[in-house]
């Protein structure tokens, strides 16, 4: 690799120390946690350098040790963890043996930090201004009331908050998620640190907001020559934003290098798997699929191949299984006193889903997509409009008929950790729909449960086990098995893969595609993630503020979206802006 990378390490206006000396240098870092079951090595022998002004990304799944590595750089590990080996050199000094007082000078001043969840990282009882001033005072960037105030305003302005002066006296609940994240970025950059650690800074935000925030971090740090350590689970995002990518798995670095080189030419089987499974990269790699096929083992799920196969199998002439006409839902929102105001969550939406196909309902939070799904599942009464399933109207029917209709439609929800009753065995959870719908013969239910476990590729030994022994992906399989128990026509997947790690997500998407082909299922796929849509959906409907703003086949939407909103969503897919140069 002699080719230089035209990336973010260009130097800004602020003079940087020797650009060829690493700002932070991590050597053979080991982090150990004391747990009930003995010590656990969360980080094992990790080494890397961060040079002034460059952006480095650590990519990994949950539990890979990426966040632990980042917190170890600031020695902010939780109480039961500690650095058990190696060294962390910040500007040439080893900080492993620094006490709290010395660390306080480094935190904020040399290394700034932007946490993951903007909703819980601002103290709700103090005004935003108080919290910004607190950070400025602690870092000693300014002294005196006036100076601090002025600096606080400057920080918020830099963070892109309009009207910063008035905003200072407001409280966190008056800010949206994106604005709170801007405040946190402002605090993180308040003392002009040389390195900013951003730990999944946007994973709690809507995709379009995500892009804006990342753009903002990029431009701010570029201007000041600040180096960035970006922690993320999204390879596409890492490649797009960083010049160097480090891939971690089980506490070790499995592969590291210049981002473009790493993505186009992954060497380690784990990285290869990650890239194949990343839906955000799938669309970009359609050309190069065959090249990678020979290296792929059985455990690799190739999203690009899936997308291609899907495109072949569409049968456009099939009769609609689900037909929604002018569906509307009003909620009343309580105002001061006894007044209430109507709020239209879903606004006259209409769509059909042909048998055996997948319709993706895409939108950001608050777009009404989940409310629409709940109405279709009969969990929420529509204000007006019609829902027809297999020719039978669902609205205005008796409870008995609705009960029967319910067996035709089953949901899979987002959070694998709450979608199964923790006190019921796996078999009992899967068999519940059958019990409720009057299949009283125990042996019949048992047979069916075993068949379903097999269909979702879970071992039969799980029969008498409980959900707490399973991982998120495995729980989601159980939830799918439960949804399939009554042989429904339609499965409503409400963000069903959003909470899963990339590899597991790919596996579940594969399973869903296989089941659709095998059982002729019709899916309504609710998601905020357009990247996933590309590999699973035949048709797409984009929702914004309760309305469907654009709909069409997946290819139409991805190749020639007409609405600016859709275009914004598409642009926000991490990795979409990558120049692959293939």
């Amino acid at each position, binding site marked *: 690799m002699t080719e230089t990378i035209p990336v973010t390490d260009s130097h800004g206006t602020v003079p940087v120390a020797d650009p060829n000396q690493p700002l932070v240098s991590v050597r053979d870092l080991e982090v150990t946690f004391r747990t009930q079951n003995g010590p656990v090595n969360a980080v094992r022998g990790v080494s890397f350098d961060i040079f002034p002004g460059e952006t480095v990304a650590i990519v990994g799944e949950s539990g890979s040790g990426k966040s632990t590595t980042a917190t170890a750089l600031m020695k902010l590990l939780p109480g039961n963890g500690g650095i058990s080996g190696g060294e962390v050199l910040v500007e040439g000094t080893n900080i492993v043996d620094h006490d709290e007082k010395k660390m306080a000078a480094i935190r904020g001043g040399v290394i700034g930090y932007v946490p993951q969840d903007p909703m819980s990282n601002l103290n709700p009882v103090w005004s935003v201004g108080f919290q910004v001033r607190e950070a400025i005072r602690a870092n000693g960037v300014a002294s005196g009331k006036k100076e601090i105030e002025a600096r606080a305003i400057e920080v918020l302005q830099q963070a892109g908050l309009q009207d910063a002066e008035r905003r200072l006296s407001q409280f966190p609940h008056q800010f949206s998620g994106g604005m709170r994240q801007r405040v946190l970025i402002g605090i993180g950059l308040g003392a002009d640190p040389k390195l900013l650690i951003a730990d999944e800074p946007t994973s709690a935000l809507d995709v379009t907001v995500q892009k804006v925030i990342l753009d903002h971090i990029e431009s701010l740090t570029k201007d000041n020559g600040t180096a960035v350590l970006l922690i993320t689970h999204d390879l596409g995002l890492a490649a797009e934003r960083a010049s160097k990518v480090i891939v971690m798995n089980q506490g070790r670095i499995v592969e590291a290098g210049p981002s473009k080189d790493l993505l186009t030419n992954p060497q380690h089987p784990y990285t290869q798997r990650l890239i194949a499974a990343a839906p955000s990269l799938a669309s970009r790699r359609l050309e190069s699929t065959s090249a990678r096929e020979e290296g792929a083992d059985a455990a690799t799920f190739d999203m690009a191949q899936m997308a291609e196969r899907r495109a072949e199998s569409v049968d456009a002439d099939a009769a609609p299984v689900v037909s929604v006409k002018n569906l509307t839902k009003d909620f009343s929102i309580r105002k001061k006193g006894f007044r209430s105001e109507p709020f239209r969550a879903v606004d006259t939406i209409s769509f059909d889903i042909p048998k055996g196909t997948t319709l993706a309902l895409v939108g950001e939070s608050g777009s009404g997509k989940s409310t629409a799904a709940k109405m279709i599942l009969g969990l929420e009464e529509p204000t007006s409009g019609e829902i027809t399933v297999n020719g039978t109207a669902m609205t205005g029917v008796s409870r008995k008929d609705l009960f029967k209709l319910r067996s035709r439609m089953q949901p899979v929800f987002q959070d694998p950790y709450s979608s199964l009753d923790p006190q019921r065995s796996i078999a009992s959870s899967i068999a519940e729909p059958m019990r*409720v719908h009057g299949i009283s013969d125990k042996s019949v239910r048992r047979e069916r449960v075993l068949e379903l476990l097999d269909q979702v590729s879970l071992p039969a030994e799980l029969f008498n086990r*409980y959900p707490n022994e399973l991982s998120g992906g495995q729980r989601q399989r159980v939830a799918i098995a439960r949804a399939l128990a009554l042989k429904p026509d339609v499965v409503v997947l409400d963000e069903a893969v959003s909470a899963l790690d990339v590899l597991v997500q790919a596996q579940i998407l594969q399973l869903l595609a296989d089941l659709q082909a095998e059982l002729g299922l019709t899916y309504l796929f609710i998601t905020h993630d357009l990247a996933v849509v590309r590999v699973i959906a035949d048709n797409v409907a984009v929702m914004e503020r309760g309305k469907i703003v654009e709909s069409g086949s997946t290819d139409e939407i991805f190749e020639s979206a007409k609405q600016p909103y859709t275009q914004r969503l598409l642009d926000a897919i991490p990795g979409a802006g990558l120049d692959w140069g293939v």
Partner: protein
Amino acid sequence: MSDRHPDHYVAPVDETQPGAVDQVKLSARKSNMWLDAWRDLRKRPLFYVALVLALLVTVVALFPSWFTPLDPNAPGACLLADSNGAPVDGHPLGFTRQGCDVYSRIIYGASTSLTVGLLVVAITGAIGIPMGAIAGFYGGWVDSFLSRVGDIFFSIPYFLAAVVVMSVMSEYRNPLVISFAIGGFAWASLARIVRAEVLRNKNLEYVMASEAIGRSRGSTLLKHVLPNSMGPVIVTLTLSLGAAITAEATLSLLGIGLNGYMSWGNEIAQAQQTLRTNPSALFWPSLALTLTVLAFTFLGELIRDALDPKARARR
């Protein structure tokens, strides 16, 4: 090594071979909330001490004649000649002022104390659980109404209420009445706990899934939400068993407790008068009361710790 543009590093594959994606790894033994809690309890010595004590009290209450050949209720069981007598053979704890055998009265008093304790727990649960569950699960005006009723009862100290009730009901001083007097005013805090637990559970996705299957609201509450809310309820009820036994004893001590029943509270009340001359007549029933209450309190707290994975991890 410190190079601004490092080479593409790849870890040795044989050391970092990625395993199968999301493989099912089952531990050798089953695991769920109650099983885990039980495994934790089994490892704690204090649990056995508390359990043995609680079981002993229960057996004594059920079969007092196994533990003493004397029947304190029999006519002529107390002889004034023995008044305030020291322990002698067959009467290991001595005599009361009335010349009654202290040991056999403690043994026979256990059944009354435990009956009151269990009745109070039953009454508290029978009112508190449905009130809290219905308020939390159905919400809206139902919640407002039931919660306000609960607030009213919560604002009345249950012991004060029991004193008033027992003073009025002076002719019916039996275990059932005293239990209603205590339990009828003590359920509000349990209802609050149940309501909070139900609120926490009712928005979880398995509840939505259960309704999407076609289960009715009521059935979902009974089959999914309530069972998952029982942890704190069991802890609270175990703790309140001890409190109820104490309350009964206190009411009896004040002279408005049970009338004509042998109970630890009554024994303590009577022994008060001879505190200077015969303190042991006061000491033994007090010890029985303390140990019993302690046993149930420990049980409740141990179960609470065992059910809480965070508390388990701290040890």
